[in-house]
């Protein structure tokens, strides 16, 4: 779009003689504090800290089984109650952050790589290549995400790599579509054409000139999809297709807590709340980033 935005004419008013000019403030307009970024960032930071150094926050180790505390309600000692083995639910949630984040972040990286390559090639090459890739993506997306995750996970061994790979594969077409659209929007801009005219190679054009222009969208997408990936990971754990190891896992906690619903409401409630808050915070952060980085979202 080549619409020239005309600045409104603002007459410059000189201060009359004898009137002291007010001292110029460093920042004429007081900036509002961007709560919409700060709040979710803080929540994400807490989550990251839990994942990195859980022992700083958890009052108990995830392996501490207190025989006297089995299915005990929340109390001063066990803030969020205890589970069927006498483990502290709050500590399990803190220690569980690592696996949930690992699955979500890993999956998003995989889908960014796979989807990114597809999107870049399709958008840059255009024509038949683009058409073929887009049909492939249509087909892949014709199966609802959850079902695709389920069918892939069923065929694989339930370890961390496979769960990440599965979710990454399922989410990748979404990344491919966004990147493709962005590449198409940029690829014929004058600076790209200029570089092409002096003989830049395809790879140089793609990585040096086009790719940087997709970064804002990529950043927004990555943030927004971490939440979705986390939900899919939780769902897999919940239906028994998740990572099988001895680390605490939010989805697995939730599925265990479900068995004790009638006697211990806290056991299923709090792990679910942790997941929800984690996803809300990444979603809020993604939306805040989108408002700043995506020009189309500015007016809403």
């Amino acid at each position: 779009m080549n619409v020239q935005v005309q600045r409104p004419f603002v007459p410059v008013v000189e201060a009359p003689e004898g009137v002291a000019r007010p001292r110029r403030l460093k920042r004429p307009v007081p900036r509002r504090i961007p709560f919409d970024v700060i709040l979710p960032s803080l929540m994400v930071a807490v989550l990251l800290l839990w994942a990195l150094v859980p022992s700083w926050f958890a009052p108990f180790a995830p392996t501490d089984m207190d025989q006297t505390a089995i299915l005990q309600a929340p109390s001063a000692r066990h803030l969020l109650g205890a589970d069927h083995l006498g483990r502290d639910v709050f500590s399990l949630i803190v220690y569980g952050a690592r696996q949930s984040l690992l699955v979500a972040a890993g999956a998003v990286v995989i889908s960014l790589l796979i989807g990114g390559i597809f999107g870049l090639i399709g958008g840059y090459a255009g024509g038949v290549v683009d058409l073929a890739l887009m049909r492939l993506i249509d087909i892949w997306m014709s199966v609802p995400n959850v079902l695709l995750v389920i069918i892939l996970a069923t065929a694989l061994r339930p370890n961390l790599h496979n769960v990440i790979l599965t979710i990454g594969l399922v989410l990748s077409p979404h990344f491919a579509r966004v990147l493709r659209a962005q590449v198409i929007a940029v690829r014929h801009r004058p600076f790209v054409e200029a570089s092409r005219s002096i003989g830049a190679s395809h790879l140089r054009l793609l990585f040096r000139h086009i790719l940087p222009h997709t970064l804002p969208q990529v950043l927004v997408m990555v943030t927004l999809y971490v939440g979705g990936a986390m939900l899919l990971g939780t769902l897999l754990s919940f239906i028994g297709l998740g990572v099988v190891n001895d680390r605490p896992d939010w989805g697995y906690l939730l599925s265990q807590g479900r068995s004790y619903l009638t006697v211990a409401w806290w056991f299923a409630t709090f792990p679910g709340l942790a997941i929800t808050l984690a996803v809300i915070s990444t979603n809020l952060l993604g939306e805040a980033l989108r408002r700043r980085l995506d020009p189309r979202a500015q007016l809403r």
Partner: protein
Amino acid sequence: MGYVSKRIAGALFVVFGAVTLIFIVLYWLPGDPAQLIAGDDASPALVARLRAQLGSDQPLWTQYIHYIQGLATGDLGRSFATGESVFSRLAAQAPATLELAAFSLLVTVVLGVILGMVSAVHRNDWIDTTIQSVMLALASMPSFWLGILFILIFSVWLRWLPAIGNGSVAQLMLPVATMGLASAGRLAPMVRNNLVEVLDEPFVATLRAKGLLERPVLYQHVLRSALIPTVTLLGVIVGELLGGLVVIETLFARQGLGRIIAEAIGNKDIPMVQGAVLFFAVVYVTINLFVDLSYRWIDPRIAL
């Protein structure tokens, strides 16, 4: 070729592609069905025999042709676990799932459209903020956790509604509420944003300027313009709803395809999972086909 038949051909192509793609990916993935069924400590001889029995020792091409030939005659293969026909099992359970899906979709649409509308009309004031916050929370929680909370509140504590089973209307309430709310949390914000976009268009200002009341502006003009994007979204929402159903059915111990999938997962019964997923894909693609076809009916200006 007319538009309608072109779209149908396109949908068939996508379904066929999905079948092929899932087949190839399942073949490529390192999991060996025979090994999975037999267990890790089974003797190699047993695994080899199972492999021959399942046909998974054949090359990809042979297996694929065999599978497609079966599909053409409505044969989705036989269950690894019980040996029964996948198709007849799915056909027997499909009505229960479709019932749940239909009611959930109804709740989703009614809630999503109404809340999205209210939100858009009250743009940026406290009503909008409240609705948006609640919808964000709903969209960010695992739907099965919402279901667990409902069971806890309405079945365990209040004892108003049964938590499990199917057959009666009361048993339908909690799963429908869960699924409907979870999907409405995604639909409402999208409806809101569509409406807000339309409300900002110049024709709305013109309508207001000529003195039309806010109500007719909204109901007769804005809503109609926002209908097409909303119907498009519905196609997307249906996909998520169908996926969510699998877990929700299991959670509420209902008969249906979700339960089949859950059982099949436990048995590593890949043909059964494959068949059920294929069924959902067909439903999903069909609904999106109708969405595409409905554009012309909604907006006669669209030359298809």
